[in-house]
């Protein structure tokens, strides 16, 4: 059983090597003449001012938190989805209740304006 996963491990390593190899080739072949101006952050030709660690909108956090909840729901749905054929109506109704609770939360965040970006 675990034998099947060996190719995947090797494939991941190869994937990293392809990208790593390309970048090593770039470092070896490309010339390097760094100077202060060239290595400063790009700001359309102006001198970079302030730090780039800006304050950013709290909505990005909100999206990340909502994502965790919903992604977890999807993870819960996976085994149910695979087994539904054998579970029949009982299994289906159980998931309807589960989704109903999820939808209550979804409607709440919608009404609270957590999904507004205007």
């Amino acid at each position: 059983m675990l034998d099947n996963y060996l190719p995947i491990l090797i494939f991941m390593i190869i994937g990293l090597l392809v990208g790593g190899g390309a970048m090593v080739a770039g470092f070896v072949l490309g010339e390097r003449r760094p100077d202060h101006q060239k290595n400063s952050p790009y700001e359309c030709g102006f001198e970079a001012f302030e730090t780039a660690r800006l304050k950013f909108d709290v909505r990005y956090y909100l999206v990340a938190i909502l994502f965790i909840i919903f992604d977890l729901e999807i993870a819960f749905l996976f085994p149910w989805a695979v087994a539904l054929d054998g579970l029949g109506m009982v299994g289906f109704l159980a998931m309807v209740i589960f989704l109903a609770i999820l939808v209550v939360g979804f409607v709440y965040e919608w009404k609270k304006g957590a999904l507004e970006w205007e």
Partner: protein
Amino acid sequence: MIELWNSLPEVIRILLKIVVILAPLMGLVAYYTLAERKIIGYMQIRIGPNRVGPRGLLQPIADAVKLMFKEIILPTRADKTLFIIAPLLTLAPALAAWAVFPFDENLVLADINAGLLYILALTSLGVYGVIIAGWASNSKYALLGALRSGAQIVAYEIAMGFALVGVLVAAGSLNLGDIVRAQSGNVFTWFWLPLLPLFLIYFISGLAETNRAPFDVAEGESEIVAGFHVEYSGMTFAVFFLGEYANMILISALSATLFLGGWLSPLPAAWVEGVFPLDSGFHWLLLKTFFFMFLFLWFRATFPRYRYDQIMRLGWKVFIPITIVWILVVGLAVVYKLPPWWSA
């Protein structure tokens, strides 16, 4: 030949198989960039690149060589380690996802039962490359691009995940080969028809996941110059670029496999029997994948860029409700064994 093959150690055999998958894939990525420039060129009544080699056919090779000899800039204020790791995190998952992909009946590198779960996990990893690149660059444009892109990818990830749950309900298996076999029959037993809303949502989410037009606010050349990879140059940029195109090909191939019957032939068996030996197989998968790859380019040439609030509204307020409803519809159809899809 077969004796020689069997005498090789297991690891070497796997490596050779991986090379057989990756080499054509990298070639496809290279020529996909040329196809993009040519096709969009013709759509805009230009002829596109035509100087390097006959009809510009050597253009991707020239681009690769040029990028290889370009200076790699490591910005002074950047976090150097993360700056280097970020492109790898974009490219490696886009390649490794092919490990479980079925190219034909029995033609798959790792025939695992959790295939679709593995692909969902790996395609989700792509967002790390974007976020880390934006953060490590220590540049305002890069940070803005990474934030936009991260929130967008994450939002569409949910719609995509729900669409995949619909496919699972319909197929009753996580194994990609079994998902294709569950669609066998004719063109109308493929999942695009019973799962039509999920099919559309899956592909559109794929566009958003790969930051392609019309959802390319993360790059937004005319607003935030190039978004998260503004500080990257030379080969570090090229790796991002390869990752993006490999991801587009992956999404195309997955759409073809999950909704258009993968390697299955659209022609009824009675028609082709004895006429020509092209019943079902890899060539059909290739044709279907090319169709979706062409859509990526066509959309880019056709649609203007969405505004950011429109993108978020489409993802959260349109796609997620539709997918939840359609999962229930498909669930009922499976429980009641709705013919012709689930009669057996």
